[in-house]
């Protein structure tokens, strides 16, 4: 039987901790900071993941991409030499015709991109990405201008090489600062094009090239601007999510007839998504690991204070031993004090971390998960036990007469 009872031990531990309130808070500060940062960082990691997933869903979850070069390496990460391969391989009109013929239920969209300066009568924007594609591309990629902002181009305009262009939100703002861009003229590589629409503002995805900074034109127009008929990428829209895998297999078969297996890649957004997510996971784990170091530092802080406390209370320990406290009772008492300190720190850390994550979420994706809260709290409690043992053992081993004589 445990003497004193567990209840009595907890009660007396709380009492001695409450005698030193400011010290308690300062001691727990290390754990508080550690737990807070672990929760914040995992929340941000999780928030980023779900943000990326949402973005991919918005971009068309049923899309399959055919891209030159090897985008993924065999381990599912991004391939190192993809850029070199992308420079070498270019798809052609023949591929488009073949794909169109064989993939009956899907929509195949060729994409060609070029970079050029774009001018209005008021301003100039240098080296803008100009994507050429078809009528379907607008719907498929969620870039069709909304009501009142003009329209997307049609296949007829593509076939007739009508000089029209759809501007990204930021490009339109730059070129036509104080008025609507729709109906105005822009000049690209000496060619005059009519603005027929402005894409709604989408916001940047992590500072990369965004829809807001892009310019869209019919494929035939971009071919003229680029000076070639090459196709950079195919976007194949599958009718349903379940059709993605068979379509990928079929595309691979078709493309293998014409290209070497390393010269092209067939992937869907989920593959891209899982690659990006694995990068975010690694980053999150690394950052959380660094934050967890502060938990250890917090534990050292608790050990330090508990050692001071043992020294301060040497006479009390001596007295308790003289009147019948056996060594283990003293050990458990001090251990419980250390655990209470670290659990208090853990609890405050969980609250601060959760509030912080909620605050961050208003301008940056952050998502609190129960598992990270439980993990942070249990690690902080474990730290309390581990770092509480040494001072508690020291206390339990004190000789009663020496402890009583201690001044």
């Amino acid at each position, binding site marked *: 039987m445990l003497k004193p009872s567990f209840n009595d031990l907890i009660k007396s531990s709380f009492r001695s901790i409450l005698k030193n309130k400011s010290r308690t808070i300062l001691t727990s500060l290390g754990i508080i900071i550690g737990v807070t940062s672990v929760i914040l960082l995992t929340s941000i990691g999780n928030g980023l993941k779900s943000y990326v997933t949402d973005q991919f869903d918005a971009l068309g979850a049923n899309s399959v991409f055919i891209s030159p070069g090897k985008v993924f390496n065999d381990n599912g990460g991004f391939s190192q030499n993809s850029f070199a391969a992308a420079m070498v391989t270019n798809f052609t009109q023949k591929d488009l015709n073949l794909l169109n013929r064989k993939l009956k239920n899907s929509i195949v969209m060729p994409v060609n991109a070029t970079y050029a300066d774009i001018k209005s009568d008021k301003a100039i924007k240098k080296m803008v990405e100009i994507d050429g594609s078809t009528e379907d591309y607008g719907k498929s990629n969620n870039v069709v201008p909304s009501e009142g902002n003009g329209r997307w181009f049609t296949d007829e305009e593509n076939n007739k090489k009508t000089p029209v262009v759809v501007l990204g939100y930021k490009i339109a703002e730059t070129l036509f600062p104080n008025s609507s861009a729709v109906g105005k003229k822009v000049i690209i590589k000496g060619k005059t094009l009519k603005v027929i629409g402005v894409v709604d503002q989408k916001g940047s995805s992590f500072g990369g090239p965004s829809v807001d900074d892009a310019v869209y034109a019919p494929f035939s127009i971009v071919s003229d601007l680029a000076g070639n008929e090459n196709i950079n990428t195919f976007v194949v829209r599958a009718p349903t999510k379940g059709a993605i895998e068979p379509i990928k297999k079929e595309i691979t078969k078709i493309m293998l007839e014409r290209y070497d297996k390393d010269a092209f890649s067939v992937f869907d957004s989920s593959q891209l998504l899982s690659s990006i997510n694995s990068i975010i996971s690694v980053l999150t784990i690394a950052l959380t690991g660094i934050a967890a170091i502060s938990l250890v530092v917090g534990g050292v802080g608790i050990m330090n204070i508990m050692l001071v406390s043992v020294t301060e209370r040497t006479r009390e320990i001596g007295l308790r031993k*003289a009147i*019948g406290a*056996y060594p283990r*009772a003293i050990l458990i008492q001090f251990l419980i004090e250390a655990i209470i300190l670290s659990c208090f720190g853990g609890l405050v850390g969980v609250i601060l971390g959760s509030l912080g994550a909620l605050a961050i979420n208003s301008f940056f994706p952050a998502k609190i998960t129960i598992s990270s809260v439980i993990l942070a709290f249990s690690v902080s409690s474990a730290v309390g036990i581990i770092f509480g043992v040494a001072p508690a053992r020291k206390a339990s081993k004190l000789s009663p*007469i020496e402890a009583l004589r201690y001044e």
Partner: protein
Amino acid sequence: MIKLSPKNNSNVILELKNITKTYATGTNCFTALDNVNLKIHQGEFVSITGPSGSGKSTLMHIIGLLDNPTSGEVLLNGKDISKLKEHQLAQIRNVTLGFVFQQFNLLAKTSALENVLLPLLYSDVPKHQRQEIGLAFLKKVGLEDKIKNTPAQLSGGQQQRVAIARALVNNPQIVLADEPTGNLDSKSGADIMKFFHQLNEKEGRTIVFVTHDMDLAKQAKRTIVIKDGKVLEGKNA
């Protein structure tokens, strides 16, 4: 649980046999107790006295099972306690012995009642009885109106009475007091001594106390004088 049943033939509670205690101080060896033999009987009121450094405190610590002798035997109710483990010794200190210290050694910022209840924390006394027992002993030492006071709110004499209540709360066989009046003015000191006399005479409690004050020592029914680690005299020893 160790049974410490009193022997029938003699009423000796505690017996020291050939106790020697030496301390190693650097290269020298200091003998604090030199072959001490001693018997404490049931119901005795014994004082241990001697000049400072004579070894009386060391003797007290060995009687109180707070220190181990270098050689010799300590028999408590006829049983050798030198082989016992630390937690078994702790139990004996809790149940069989009651300590009163010169410095009172009350827990600061803790009420008189809780100080008295402290030994019960480590005992088998059921929880619901503790409060009542504590109050009864505080009443016995005349502090029933100070149960909520912390040591800082009590006079020295009152603090020592709380400490005595704490020593008695587990009904020990022997009450051990180390210079119990050493930190008190003479009036409070006399009160404490009077209380010890009452305990001995009315309740038949066995009391052993250490003092350097010869006059105080002579108030006991038996005085053991110790000098340079040797017992010089002692009636009935």
